[in-house]
């Protein structure tokens, strides 16, 4: 930097970080504790349907919920968006899809990553299964993502 040039525009990288921690509450706290054990639970809503992931209160009646229901680690694709060039915060090396996945035994779809070879191989109703992280800590990222039921887990 030339300090003699007093009009020289300066530039720099900087990071603004909000280092939040939050308490998930007892219902989501137990759901996360179960993920660490490779177990998936939804919760029974007021109308008997199974919400996954579980919520502490029913989204329609606001009733307090506490009846956990085990759900399968397999499910089907409801909808998806292909991400050809992941950005840093996606924490994924290669192309992948964000997919709405309805697990067998659940009545609501949820959003997670889907790993497969290319966008054209994805279709609504396609069967997928959980790809667990080896290093689990009780977070939604304990699920690394989903892969086609027929696939062997690759290096995505």
């Amino acid at each position, binding site marked *: *930097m030339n*300090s003699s040039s*007093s*009009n*020289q*525009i*300066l*530039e*720099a*990288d*900087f*990071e*603004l*970080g*909000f*280092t*939040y*921690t*939050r*308490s*998930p*509450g*007892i*219902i*989501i*706290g*137990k*759901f*996360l*504790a*179960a993920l*660490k*054990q490779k177990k998936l*639970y939804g919760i029974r809503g007021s109308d008997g349907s199974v919400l996954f992931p579980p919520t502490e209160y029913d989204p329609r009646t606001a009733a307090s919920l*506490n*009846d*956990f*229901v*085990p759900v399968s680690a397999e499910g089907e694709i409801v909808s998806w968006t292909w991400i050809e060039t992941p950005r840093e*915060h996606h924490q994924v090396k290669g192309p992948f899809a964000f997919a709405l996945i309805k697990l067998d035994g659940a009545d609501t779809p949820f959003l997670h990553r889907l790993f497969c070879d290319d966008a054209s191989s994805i279709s609504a109703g396609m069967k997928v299964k959980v790809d667990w992280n080896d290093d689990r800590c*009780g*977070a939604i990222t304990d699920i690394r993502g989903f892969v086609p039921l027929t696939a062997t887990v690759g290096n995505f």
Partner: protein
Amino acid sequence: MDIDLDPIESIAVPIYHHYHATSAKAITPFLHAIKRGELMGHLSSATGKVLFPPLGACPESGEATHEPVILKDSGTVIGFTTVHLPIPGSKLVPPFTVANILLDGADQTCSHLISECELGDVVIGMRVQAVWRPKDQWDYSLENIEYFKPTGEALVDVDELKQHCLERAKLRVKNRVKGNSTEVHHA
């Protein structure tokens, strides 16, 4: 059914924004000045007030400011907070005191650390003096000043100081109308 596991009590959900920042027209000379060890404010021609640090516009009148004023590195404590809890990501070790300091010649406070005194000794109206880091460590940053220390001078009545500042600002506007020079002045 219940899940017979202890619930996870806390999860980390940090959010990071990565910026590439360039200094604006008003900030650039201020940053070059601080690198040289000078505190450069801006004179607002509309209000006669000296703004530090200069952001390029007068918050009161909204007018762009251009006219540099070099300020002294001494001032008066207008307000302060003592921090006892650690701040994540901060290199400051609590307890420490941050003060709003009105630099001599300025009409706007800036924030900086107060040190070389007991926490309980910091009071409003205290006179303070900048303690600079060694010159070879100077960068384009107000951190070139490590902290401000009490000078031991008598306390200032901040209401009187405010009146003095307002009158001085009026005088600057008046003198300006008479056609005084617009060169860099020392407050």
